[in-house]
């Protein structure tokens, strides 16, 4: 018997289809991947460490920069965790606006995934269309917060500000046209024989392996496991909205694709319901210790001035304790573990980033497959390296 020789090569950290600075060490037998070892950390910026030296409100902009394709989802998980520690609930209008914007975020995030995933496998045109639609959502972020990506729109105790005038109309016109656009993407891909050839039966993971490896989000649901935190443990009033959970059967790249397309349709349905049910009223809690007073008040009232001064110099304190708050981000379970020592800065914040955990499944999906399949598999897990490395 001749000796079996393998070759070890590096893929990344600079490689267009690793979606950021991910390095994979591949041991190859011809074109077959024998072993795949991910190396991460190239984008590590010590966000959890930095958060320990910031006041509670000041951590929100850090969360934007983690999963930069879904900044509002990160904001939401963090502010919900702090609100849980404080034991407060935000007014209904703020809750519904939060749901509306995180669902728009889900669509925007899935659009980036769709475009880049398709371009990785060679379907060039989808990318241009997906980014055209995403642009409309990024414009909405700009309308509400002034920033196109790092919006930091959700605040502890509510929102940065109420929706600007005409915003509902903008959203309305987007969700009126978007479902037809989705049909167009599906026309390009869903029954495209090349697409099916490249994705069906590729990167399969068994349901029990997926649970063991902590896979969550659409990638888990594509294996047939029905777990969506919006349904199982609703937060921010998700229980009021009717939508269906995506679900696949084969756990391959194609089913993950179908799940995310379906989720975009469902997100449109949720956004439509939020527009119909949008209540009036304030968008922040009536607590001067948490929410700064309106500027004119500061010039007239001694108390308002004191609150203003305190909020900007010392922030607010949070009761001693610890909480864990999870949300269903576009990528899966995004959890925030927050420990407070009763001061005005978090004692410890840990972000359970779905991309970090999901990436661990990559070797299981890729080993035994061709190198060309690896590109399709990485795209299908939908990682954001900013969140993997934090």
């Amino acid at each position: 018997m001749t000796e079996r020789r393998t070759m070890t090569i590096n893929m990344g950290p600079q490689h267009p289809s690793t979606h950021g600075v991910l390095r994979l060490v591949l041991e190859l037998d011809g074109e077959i991947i024998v072993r795949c070892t991910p190396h991460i950390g190239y984008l590590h910026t010590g966000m959890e460490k930095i958060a320990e030296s910031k006041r509670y409100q000041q951590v929100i902009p850090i969360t934007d920069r983690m999963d930069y394709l879904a900044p509002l989802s990160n904001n939401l998980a963090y502010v919900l965790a702090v609100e849980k520690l404080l034991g407060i609930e935000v007014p209904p209008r703020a809750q519904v606006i939060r749901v509306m914007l995180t669902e728009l975020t889900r669509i925007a995030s899935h659009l980036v995934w769709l475009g880049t995933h398709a371009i990785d496998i060679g379907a060039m045109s989808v990318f241009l269309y997906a980014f055209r639609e995403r642009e409309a959502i990024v414009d909405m972020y700009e309308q509400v917060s002034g920033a196109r990506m790092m919006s930091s729109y959700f605040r502890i105790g509510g929102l940065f500000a109420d929706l600007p005038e005409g915003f509902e109309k903008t959203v309305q016109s987007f969700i009126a046209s978007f479902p037809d656009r989705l049909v167009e993407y599906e026309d390009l891909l869903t029954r495209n024989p090349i697409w099916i050839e490249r994705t069906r039966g590729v990167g399969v993971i068994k349901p029990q392996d997926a649970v063991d490896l902590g896979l969550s989000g659409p990638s888990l649901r594509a294996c047939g496991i029905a777990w969506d935190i919006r349904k199982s443990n609703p937060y921010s009033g998700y229980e009021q909205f009717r939508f269906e959970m995506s679900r696949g059967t084969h756990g391959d790249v194609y089913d993950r694709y179908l799940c995310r397309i379906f989720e975009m349709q469902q997100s449109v349905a949720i956004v439509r319901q939020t527009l119909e049910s949008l209540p009036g009223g304030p968008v922040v809690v009536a607590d001067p210790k948490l929410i700064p007073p309106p500027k004119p008040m500061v010039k007239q009232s001694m108390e308002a001035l004191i609150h203003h001064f305190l909020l900007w110099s010392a922030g607010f304190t949070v009761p001693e304790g610890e909480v864990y708050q999870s949300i269903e981000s576009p990528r899966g379970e995004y959890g925030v573990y927050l420990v407070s020592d009763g001061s005005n800065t978090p004692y410890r914040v840990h972000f359970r980033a779905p991309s970090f955990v999901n990436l661990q499944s990559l070797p299981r999906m890729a080993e035994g497959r061709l190198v060309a399949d690896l590109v399709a598999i990485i795209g299908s897990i939908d990682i954001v390296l900013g969140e993997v490395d934090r």
Partner: protein
Amino acid sequence: MGHIRGAEENLTVSKLRERFPEATFSTRSFRNETTLLVRSGDLIRICRHLKEDPGLLYDFLSDLTAVDRFGDHPRFEVVYHLYSLQYKRWIRLKVHVEEGEAAPSVTSVWGTANWHEREVFDMFGIRFEGHPDLRRILMPEEWEGCPLRKDYPVQASPKWWEEGAAGD
């Protein structure tokens, strides 16, 4: 929200006490979330039981991390968040680890613990006994110090600074 509470909480805890009469653990409840503090020697069998008992089924390890209680003894807490896909609830487990001691690795119970434990090792320097591949994950391999320890400066490690590596 979603964490075990009330009667269910007592059920989980009493089931555990019944099954492990000799194991000592304490429970704490805050904002409807339950924390079980267990001894590190009991951790693996309690985890396995929590995962496999048909009435508990905490089959999903959501998160694993650590907290540095600098100044306290034992110094570290390793924190586990378990989720039951069947009963849709979380529970938090904790073990105390003194500096220089190792915690038992739960990789044999949940595969996903592999990277989480590497991250805790990298950031806090806590070793996990029985881990198949314990090495740094986020920081460079030759890095000195554990960034998330409370006695580690936010800006740079002193040695790194003194040697002028920052300016090169």
